[in-house]
Each structure stands twice: as structure tokens, then as C-alpha cells.
């Protein structure tokens, strides 16, 4: 039998509560019965590998991967960071997928009815594999804020959606990255569904002079931390 290290638990002080009445869509979609404890087996500790997938460097450049007849419009940015587990260990060869609205706050999606222009040269979807040090890097356009109908005059703060795989299926994480200094953060029920202020700050990228490229693009650093090995390994 393949031996796999048991992972520590999902840190429920960091993750949002399931039912958050300020975020209306949780009312009929959140789980109300207690989660059933599941001992970790190979089903939980293995996971899909994407190292063999055809992910190209163009996939990570959202300013170029959907160009039709011109350049994507908006403020060009670089978003980069490290994927690590709680013990600080890098997670190499991991798939990170991102999606976002365009500079005007509009998604390429039939259900997005916001009256803002689509950009014919920007789809707002990208993906990358982390390198040997767990690093990833995207070039994109800074997304705009957009209105939603959760409450009167509700606007989502600008954000980039992240989908992340570790090596175990139970390390799966889907999250959103926000931008520093955004006044909408204090008003956003999704961001604030995480009760712990320090945990919320882990969703906010930092401006980085090192990532910023002169005459080209501002840089933002966003590190992602997945569940790591349990602090005290169990003997099996």
C-alpha cells in the first residue's frame, strides 16, 4: 500500500462560515447538517496530476491568450506568488486556474447582464503550473468592480478567482484574490464571510515593487497556502 501522510484538518477559523445571511445565496445553498468526519484514505490523499497536461506559457498571459484583432484594454498587471502548504513546503507542478471580469467589470458569460462593454481581445481565463519552487505567475488586466443584486447598490470589490489543486483531493481550494486598499472590501459580504480579520487579509494581494516591471506593468504578490501534513504524524 502506498503510504501517504495524513493532512491536518481544514482550518475552520480561516474559512468562511457556510451560512452567511448577508450573502443571500447562502440561504438555500449552505449545508445545515454537520459534516460527517471522514478518516483519510487513499481516496482523500491522492489527487489528479496535471504535470502532463498541455499547459502553455501563453495560457498564463491573459492579455494575449484571447487576442483577436488588437490588445486587451485596461491596466496591465502581473500577479505572482508561491503555492505552499501549511508547513511552508512548496507545491510544485500544481495546476492554478484563474478567471475574472475585464477592466470594465464585465465577465464573458451569458448570464452576466452588467451594462459594461465586453473586450473583444480579452476573455479573462488563464492557467499555469507551479514551478519547482511552487511559484506561479500570470500577466493580466486589472479587473473592474461590478454591481450585483445581493443588496441595494451592492458592488463586488475587484477580484480574481483562483482554483488550486494540491497533491491530495482534499487539498482542493477555490478562492478569490482581492486588491490592497479597496474601499469595497469593508462592504463585501463574501469577503467578510470569513470572520477572522487576519485570515481575510490573506485574500488580499500585496503591491510588489519587485514584480512591477518598469514601463510595463504593476506587480501584485499573492501567496496561497493549502492544508499541510498533520503536525504530529500518526503511526499506521
Amino acid at each position: 500500500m502506498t503510504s501517504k501522510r495524513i493532512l491536518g484538518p481544514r482550518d475552520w477559523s480561516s474559512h468562511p462560515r457556510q451560512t452567511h445571511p448577508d450573502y443571500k445565496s447562502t440561504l438555500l445553498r449552505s449545508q445545515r447538517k454537520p459534516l460527517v468526519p471522514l478518516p483519510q484514505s487513499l481516496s482523500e490523499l491522492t489527487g489528479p496530476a496535471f504535470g502532463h497536461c498541455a499547459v502553455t506559457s501563453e495560457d498564463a498571459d491573459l492579455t494575449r491568450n484571447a487576442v483577436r484583432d488588437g490588445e486587451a484594454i485596461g491596466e496591465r498587471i502581473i500577479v505572482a506568488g508561491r503555492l505552499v502548504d501549511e508547513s511552508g513546503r512548496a507545491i510544485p507542478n500544481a495546476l492554478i486556474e484563474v478567471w475574472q471580469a475585464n477592466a470594465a467589470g464585465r465577465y464573458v458569460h451569458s448570464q452576466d447582464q452588467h451594462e459594461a462593454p465586453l473586450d473583444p481581445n480579452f476573455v479573462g481565463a488563464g492557467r499555469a503550473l507551479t514551478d519547482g519552487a511552487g511559484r506561479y505567475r500570470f500577466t493580466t488586466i486589472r479587473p473592474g468592480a461590478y454591481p450585483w443584486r445581493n443588496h441595494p447598490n451592492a458592488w463586488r470589490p475587484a477580484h480574481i478567482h483562483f482554483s488550486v489543486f494540491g497533491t491530495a483531493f482534499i487539498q482542493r481550494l477555490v478562492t478569490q484574490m482581492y486588491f490592497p486598499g479597496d474601499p469595497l472590501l469593508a462592504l463585501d459580504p463574501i469577503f467578510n464571510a470569513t470572520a477572522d480579520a487576519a485570515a481575510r487579509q490573506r485574500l488580499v494581494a500585496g503591491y510588489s515593487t519587485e514584480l512591477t516591471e518598469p514601463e510595463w506593468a504593476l506587480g501584485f504578490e499573492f501567496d496561497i497556502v493549502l492544508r499541510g501534513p498533520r503536525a504530529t504524524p500518526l503511526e499506521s
Partner: protein
Amino acid sequence: MSSQTPSQTVGPFFSHALTPSGNGHAPIAGRQLADERTPGTLIRIEGRVLDGAGHPVTDALVEIWQARHDGAYPEGSDAFRGFGRASTDAEGRFWFQTVKPGALPENGAPHVNAAVFARGMLNHAFTRIYFSDEQAGNSRDPVLTSVDPTRRKSLVASLRDLAGPPVYEFEICLQGAHETVFFDA
């Protein structure tokens, strides 16, 4: 030591990145995990995602991870990758075409692992899909038998009584009296 990055909802607008069709880049995974050439029994898993009022959830994402027909979990180089992804349609329906997973003794009865994501779910939910025609294995499975007997059937997909390749039906209720059993592993 670092602390975990909080989960956030997948939101309603993931399809152009996670389940693209037509324009844009090729999907990294889809509903079709296997075909006639894949070793094992080709099956379909068909289901629906429902909310606490029994209404279809039309913007959910379901991911599955499963063993090969021989019970072993796929390695990176295997042709059968064991991972699938489907979004729900206007009626809340999803389907996968795959092979029936085998079972190794230490893994209990054959099952497919699933994760459910949707707008309004701030954290994704993990569940398992067992098979109704595996009664002997199911009755000994340590996970299934740990679940309250009145809720156990929410984890078992029912084999539809039809000629042709096997189709298993699996309903995912996010909330309510028939809430599916979700796990904290």
C-alpha cells in the same frame, strides 16, 4: 508555519475558465473520463443538484476523482486520469461518462469521490458516490456504515433499470430534509 488561505465561492461565472466549450482554450478536464478503449466497465453517472427549496441549482460545478477499474488511483502518466468536471445545466443536471471504479481492500466498497461548488457555497462540499449494485461491499464499507442509516442512501447512486450501458443516478441536495451527506476529511 503558514495559515490556510480561506476558501471563497466559485461564483456564477466560472464556465469560461473551468468548463469552456467552443471559444477559448481546451478544457483541462470534462464530463467524459473514459471511452470504449478504457479498461473496465463503461458507465454513466447522471445527477441533479438541488437547493434547500428543492429547486435546481443551475450554476453548480461538480468534480469527481476516482480509482481505475482495478481499484488503484491513477498516476500522472495513466491514460485514464480519474478526474472529471461538469457544470450543471438549466435543469440542474450533470453527467459523467467514466468506468466503474474497482476497490482495493483498504479502500472499502467502490466509490467515486466528489466535490461540489456553487454560487452561495462559500466552501465546497465533499461527498462520495457509491453504487446500488454493490450491496455486499457497501454493507461492509467503513465510511458508509459510519453514517446515520437514515442518511446513508444519499451516498448511493441507483442503477437505472435499462438495457445498454449502466447508468447510475445520483442526486445532490445541498440543504433540507434530504441533505446529502457531506464529509469533513
